[in-house]
């Protein structure tokens, strides 16, 4: 069957090639597969695969358009975060990452022909290093949760204690990933309390939990399921270090435009989600795991994932290459620091372009635009009868918890019927939240009018 994507499926070409091989039919090339497992052409073609026949591009486009036109659009971008957020995707970013030289390239194992790709990834590492004030950043993990899972495994390798402490309000999706990454190694995940009044970590509880050793203490900064930016963060790190644990800080990179970076907070390892950096939502399917460590030989050598470094070529010109590869699976096999190979490289390049466009002032403006929107929304909501907003009194950035005079799930569905996504009904995902709590998020994509419209609808549905 001749197909445009398979040049040698052309019958004349194929016949020439078979002749050169010295076989009379393609079947001879599969003769070593046991008869019992060979699937006949007739049976294979009758399997439910695709449309049962090749579709032409026009047919494919029509089918995809039908499926996508079925999407019910919202009247404003979702007012929802929880680990991924609606943010602006600059066309300048898309135009570069859709260039075939990057899009269709493999992992840069051959440095000499991949210098541009290597430099772009080195710049990604460098930009994230500056954003986080951490010296060493890898070339990406899949997403925040997998980066956290690997950070926990790494901490246990370094410290040797099968126990990691996480905050009680940890992102439940990340916690599920953390569990998946660690249970088979017999690692226990314990929690320390975070106050549901202020949203800040309970240092006394943390100290009590650390009377038994743990390899790491983890904190989110800001917390993704309360929005709170913890003023105790530095103290949490000090308590962790006093107890001999590593301190892992998980961040939303855009918050770094206003708040202290992990490097200033005493973090040994920083993880986070690069999705806000120009990647888009795609139902949570465009992610970028940030992973960084401070300058320490043991931490660097225990890092998972690929690292790009700057060096020189034979002629003395600056050049880039993959470095410290003896940590990795293709060399160290079962002794590798991780199995990760394919990562999120193209998303890392997108993030690098995005950060290059932003610059120092752009990042600060963006962070301020977000801070203002969430604070304006919180203040406006607090004036509605029966609402407590924010429900947690501490500092918040992009997201905050609101307490409604009715079950949040009910409110949420009613608001959705009117075309707005009013955040996330918290009690569906976490056991610590009352049933009338919701998590709202506001970004640069929300105009004042969008926010006012949302709040009007919230008011209408909650008073009816």
């Amino acid at each position: 069957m001749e197909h445009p994507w398979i040049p040698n499926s052309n019958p004349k070409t194929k016949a020439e090639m078979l002749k050169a091989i010295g076989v009379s039919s393609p079947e001879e090339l599969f003769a070593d597969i046991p008869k019992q497992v060979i699937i006949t052409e007739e049976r294979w073609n009758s399997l439910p695969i695709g449309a049962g026949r090749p579709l032409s591009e026009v047919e494919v486009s029509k089918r995809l358009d039908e499926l996508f036109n079925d999407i019910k659009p919202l009247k404003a971008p979702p007012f929802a975060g929880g680990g991924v957020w609606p943010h602006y995707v600059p066309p300048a970013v898309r135009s570069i990452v859709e260039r075939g030289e990057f899009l269709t390239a493999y992992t840069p194992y051959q440095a000499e022909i991949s210098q541009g790709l290597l430099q772009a990834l080195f710049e990604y590492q460098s930009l994230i290093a500056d954003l986080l004030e951490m010296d060493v950043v890898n070339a990406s993990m899949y997403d925040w949760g997998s980066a956290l899972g690997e950070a926990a495994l790494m901490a246990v390798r370094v410290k040797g204690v099968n126990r990691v402490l996480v905050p009680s309000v940890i992102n439940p999706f990340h916690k599920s990933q953390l569990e998946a990454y660690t249970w088979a190694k017999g690692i226990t995940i314990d929690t320390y309390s975070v106050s549901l009044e202020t949203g800040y970590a309970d240092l006394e509880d943390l100290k009590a939990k650390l009377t038994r050793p743990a390899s790491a203490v983890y904190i989110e900064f800001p917390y993704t399921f309360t929005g709170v930016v913890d003023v105790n963060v530095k103290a949490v790190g000090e308590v962790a270090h006093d107890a001999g644990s590593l301190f892992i800080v998980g961040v939303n990179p855009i918050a770094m435009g206003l708040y202290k970076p992990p490097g200033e907070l005493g973090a040994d390892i920083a993880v986070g989600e690069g999705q806000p950096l120009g990647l888009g939502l795609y139902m949570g399917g465009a992610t970028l795991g940030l992973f960084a460590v401070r300058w320490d030989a043991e931490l660097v050598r225990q890092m998972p994932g690929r690292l790009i470094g700057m060096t020189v070529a034979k002629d003395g010109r600056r050049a880039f290459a993959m470095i410290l590869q003896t940590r990795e699976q293709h060399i160290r096999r079962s002794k590798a620091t991780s199995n990760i190979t394919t990562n999120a490289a193209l998303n890392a390049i997108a993030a690098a372009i995005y950060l290059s466009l932003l610059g120092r002032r752009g990042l600060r403006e963006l962070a301020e635009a977000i801070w203002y929107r969430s604070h304006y929304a919180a203040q406006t909501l607090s004036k509605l009868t029966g609402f407590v907003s924010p429900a947690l009194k501490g500092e918040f950035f992009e997201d905050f918890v609101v307490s409604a005079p009715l079950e949040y799930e009910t409110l949420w569905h009613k608001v959705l019927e009117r075309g707005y996504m009013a955040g996330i009904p918290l009690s569906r995902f976490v056991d610590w939240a009352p049933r009338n709590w919701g998590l709202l998020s506001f970004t640069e994509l929300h105009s004042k009018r969008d926010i006012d419209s949302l709040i009007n609808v919230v008011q209408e549905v909650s008073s009816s």
Partner: protein
Amino acid sequence: MTFRQASWDEPLIHELDNGRRGLTFVGLLEEFRQLMGELSIPPSILREEPPQLPEVSEVEVIRHYTRLSEMSYGVDNGPVPLGSCTMKYNPKVALRYAFDERLQLIHPLEPEDRYQGVLRALYELQQWLAAIVGMDFCSLGVSAGAQGELAGVLTVKRYHELKGQTDLKTEIIVPDSAHGTNPASAAMAGFKVVEIPTAEDGNMDYEAFRAALGPQTAGLMLTNPSTLGLFEERILRVADDVHAVDGLLYYDGANLNGIIGRARPGDMGFDIAHLNLHKTFSTPHGGGGPGAGPICVKDREVTNGVRLKDLVPGSFVYYDEKSGLYRLAYRGPASRGSLSHFLGNLPQLIWSYVYILSLGPQGLREVGEVSVINTNYFLARVLGETKGYSLPYAKGRPRKHEAVISASPLAEKYGVTAEDVSKALLDAGFYAPTIYFPLIVKEALMVEFTESETKENIDKYVERLKEIEQLAASDPGKLKASPVNTSSQRVDAVRASHPRTVTPTYRVERARRGGKELVLR
């Protein structure tokens, strides 16, 4: 036609910093500032120094990254016959829908009834992948092949845990020809890895396998066809043996391209399989990712009504008859945690959906057939027309998706290594083969053209190998000096990783320039 890659002395983006503006949000502030006054942030957590991000205008940013892209090389530029990577053409129609703007603002926690069309596509993709590999259930929420492997071995671990035999089932068997990810994944799930040598006939050494197999065996991870491009001829017996000790068979789908449409892992006795959508199903590799590594399992009983699919730590779409809706589940009900953040890498999943629709079963069978013809055509020519390259293991047996030839004859006679050959290939405008892998082949050159490469380019590649053979005899120094047509000459890998000079970020470079001694020890 001579190949010349761009070779800009392009500064780092940090070095381009000139205080100009790129993307601004300044217009978004004033209205709120008037309403709310100045920001008030607790001083103890306020960032006092802005991060040292460069400031460059948009046009400068675009030119910078365009120049970097000109010093990169992908399938759109020319052949990338990298063994085990299945670097096939990434169809443009798929690009259009994978990153469709209609998907860009869908939040994963929006209710499912708002994007039924997308979920339907994903549900269908699951069914199609299951049919392709002969399994019953697939989870799409896995980000890459290695994560698929981890999902697989965690499923194996959980299977034995639920059967109360965790302490007994401590070992995973892996052939020595396997990708490094297999033993690495097994180790991440807390298993001891037992490696089995490859026999001269290219199959796993059956006697060694039998000797390693026992009640402690939790499972076997097998890549079939192997990284040598050879089909494991004893697979049915091996499957029976593993099942006889209550082990599970894990299929590494990295090499599915060579048998797609001809044989299915599910029919060979495998219980679990992962697929690399960024290999077999045309998702672009993006310079290292993101990919997608769905895992598929057989619907078999584990214990007390729990099915194998219930153990999978990844998200999937199911059809809920009651509501008449496609719905999303984050993990199997009997799994421990989920590796998926939400439902997986959506653009990559949509990409493969478009690919499979475009090819249908007939086209996918053609993919397998032509990829195998391309491999064997290449072999017939290179072995027939040169003496410098040999074919270790299973002489005379057809290869499938890829072939591993050895440059040992060149190395022994002229001191020209696999690395030299690969760099000389770069100079002719071909991406190099995978080299020094699998580890069991000396001076390995692992070549995989996939179904996308034209006969003309395979011919040119062979001609270049012949030319390299001649140069090895006449002017080996020229080969050692290659590449010269690429953006860079050979890089100093020792300096790159040396504790005193290792430079993983510009931040480190900046500190060293400021007089700080940064040594990694």
